[in-house]
């Protein structure tokens, strides 16, 4: 873990974990994992292990923060101290605060907040283990948690990052590629409405490289979107099969 790899892409064009440049890491999704929460979901993507829970719509505390014409959406992205190589202090870092904000702004376009004035919807994200691309995986899980809570949505929001490792545009960066690569472009998408709700970038990309990365990320998003839908239906399909035998 302490040795920096010389190259991120080998001579055969394969990445450190054997993936091709446009390949996603294995993704596992499960809905309804926290019985107390109104809605919840769990995601594994690569070595990422992330839980999302939703409470609401419920009363706003403190009352003066309530909006008269719609619900307030709040989001807290938090990393467990043991989620990363070097123990992270449990206190919210500036990075977590910024990520909480961009995640909230990626989910809000999908929520019909105007249906529930004077209420609050809380989204809690806990990263149990981090492996690059946590904000994207968090968004994917959080959107499922919102749907699981029965909150009306325009669409599910799904997220995936693309970037540049050595001189290749790659999909779904893992930790080493995130840290040592030349660029990282996380994208969140509402596929039915063709709406990008999160877009960030750090690194250096020409305009052509940027366009390639965005398109690659969108393709990755669409693949994960199908998995999201299956995960939502899974619980009910299972019951249906059993009951109707």
């Amino acid at each position, binding site marked *: 873990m302490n040795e920096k790899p010389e190259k991120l892409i080998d001579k055969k064009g394969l990445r450190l974990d054997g993936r091709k440049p446009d390949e996603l890491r294995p993704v596992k999704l499960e809905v309804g994992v926290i019985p107390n929460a109104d809605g919840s979901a769990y995601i594994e993507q690569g070595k990422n292990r992330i839980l999302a829970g939703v409470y609401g719509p419920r009363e706003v505390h403190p009352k003066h923060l309530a909006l008269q014409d719609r619900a307030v959406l709040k989001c807290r992205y938090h990393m467990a101290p043991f989620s990363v190589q070097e123990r992270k202090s449990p206190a919210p870092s500036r990075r977590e605060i910024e990520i909480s904000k961009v995640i909230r702004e990626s989910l809000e376009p999908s929520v019909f907040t105007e249906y529930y004035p004077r209420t609050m919807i809380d989204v809690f994200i806990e990263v149990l283990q981090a492996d690059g691309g946590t904000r994207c995986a968090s968004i994917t899980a959080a959107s499922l948690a919102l749907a699981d809570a029965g909150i009306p949505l325009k669409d599910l929001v799904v997220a995936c990052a693309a970037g540049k490792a050595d001189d290749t545009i790659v999909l779904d960066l893992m930790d080493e590629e995130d840290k040592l690569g030349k660029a990282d472009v996380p994208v969140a998408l509402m596929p039915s409405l063709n709406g990008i709700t*999160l877009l960030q970038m750090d690194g250096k990309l020409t305009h052509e490289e940027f366009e390639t990365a965005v398109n690659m990320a969108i393709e990755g998003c669409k693949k994960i979107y199908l998995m999201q839908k299956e995960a939502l239906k899974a619980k009910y399909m299972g019951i249906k099969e059993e009951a109707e035998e």
Partner: protein
Amino acid sequence: MASVVTRIKRKQIVQLLEKGKRLDGRELTDYRELKIDQGIIERAEGSARVRLGKTEIVVGTKVEMGEPFSDTPNEGVLTVNAELVPLASPKFEAGPPDENSIELARVVDRGIRESKVIDTEKLCIEKGKKVFVVFVDVYVLNHDGNLIDASALAAVAALLNTKMSNYEVEDGEVKLKSGYTQLPIKQHPITVTCAKIGEKLVVDPGLEEEQVMDARLSMAIDDDGDICAIQKGGTGYFTPEQVIEVSKLAKDKAKEMRKKLDW
């Protein structure tokens, strides 16, 4: 918390945009009047004041000696902080940095860091032991929209104005000498922000435009014309086509601005 904007105002802005005009008469892709002054705070190692329309930002830099991070022993440290001081807007409250000031600081930081404005290796004094630490403090004095572009410009202008003390290393001890050296600046990134209102994209949104916009997209462009940082903000969304359109606008406007500033 968003202040309530009357429906009439939003309608007015949208209708003007249909005709290709904005509230203050600007074209959709025009920046407001820009004024940059450097070296306005003597006590700071570097400083700049940017006035973009009525938005006013002051950035002061302080250069101190400190320890490097363990994973980059031969690199100096750059850190950016931003304050949305209460006098700058009726919406700003006193207190620890909130998510807006943290986002602003981190977006400005990314633009500077990813474009490698400073060659941080040149800030190294003694590998693993002593380096220069450059503090960039962004102070928002008046908020009339587009704090990101104005702050980013002010930060680069302040760094261009920043000097570090001359020093010599004697018997393993660092001693200050007389005189200063300018900070070695390699790049001059320019951040361009576009706001989406309905289906229109406007460059350099003013405060009222920000209050009615669906979302904003900021892109930092370096001297080569490449993108080095992007941040989408706001509770709306962009289509992929709009994202590409913004990237083209950002490239053009950054080039224009770079020429004007002679950066």
